[in-house]
């Protein structure tokens, strides 16, 4: 029984840990905190695995991640966490990108720019945007995870896109000037 549970957990870890990490990273704006959050959610997944309803798994994971992250934010009061310095960003890239240092550096900078833009959105819009566009959840799943109506999900997503597009344009203008 335990072997099956371990196997199931391993598969679920492989499948969902990226989503959890990305969502936690977008909420906490800090790599170390996002790693802690991911571990905590994975441990909670292990505890809830025997009584888990598989069709709600993704929504449950995102909801747990969000609750944990918001709790951490409330505790540490670091909503506007400082961005990492460039050196730290370069050190923290995944191993597969380390093969080509210049490519890895470019990728890190682009990723950091994307994170910076994303962090300028309010938490609800950011959550909806990350869950839909980055993690690929459906409207129903997002509504379930964030405990809001489906219509609100659609509205938030539209607003998030609009604001991000505006932010991207502003950034472009700043660069040109």
């Amino acid at each position: 029984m335990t072997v099956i549970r371990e196997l199931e957990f391993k598969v679920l870890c492989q499948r969902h840990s990226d989503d959890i990490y990305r969502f936690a990273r977008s909420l906490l704006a800090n790599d170390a905190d996002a790693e802690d959050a991911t571990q905590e959610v994975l441990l909670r997944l292990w505890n809830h695995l025997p009584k888990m309803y598989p069709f709600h798994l993704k929504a449950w994971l995102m909801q747990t991640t969000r609750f944990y992250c918001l709790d951490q934010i409330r505790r540490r009061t670091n909503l506007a966490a400082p961005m990492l310095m460039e050196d730290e960003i370069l050190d923290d890239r995944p191993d597969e990108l380390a093969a080509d240092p210049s490519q890895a550096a470019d990728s890190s900078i682009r990723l950091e720019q994307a994170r910076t833009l994303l962090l300028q959105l309010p938490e609800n819009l950011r959550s909806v945007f990350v869950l839909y566009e980055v993690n690929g959840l459906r409207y129903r799943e997002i509504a379930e995870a964030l405990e809001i109506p489906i219509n609100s999900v659609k509205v938030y997503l539209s607003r998030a896109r609009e604001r991000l597009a505006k932010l991207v344009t502003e950034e472009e203008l700043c660069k040109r000037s």
Partner: protein
Amino acid sequence: MQTKLTQLIRELKNEKCPQRLRDEARGRIAARETSPRRLRLAFPMALAGLMLACGLLGWQRHARHRTELAQLTAERARVAHQAENALGLVGSVLLSAGNDSGKIISDRTVPALRDSFETAKKTLNQYIDL
């Protein structure tokens, strides 16, 4: 603008969870899961150990009790035997004392009584002769 947004989404999608996080989570789970297993084994083992210790203690106490009882019986028999010997000795001493005292009395008093009787008889005979 849409291209930029798509590029931004692509960048965010490229973000991966480090493998070590999964390994650490699995390690923590494994560590947490082994301790209840150990506890599950430890409880019956402790119970068995306790029962064994209780059995040994009881057996030891029973053996000690039996030894003490045997020692007490032997002591009682020895005391009874000693008392019997002592009483025998006292009896023999008394008997010997009785014999000795009878002999002493007869040795000391009989001649004196006999002498006084003879004296009285002589005195009476003198009176009669007169």
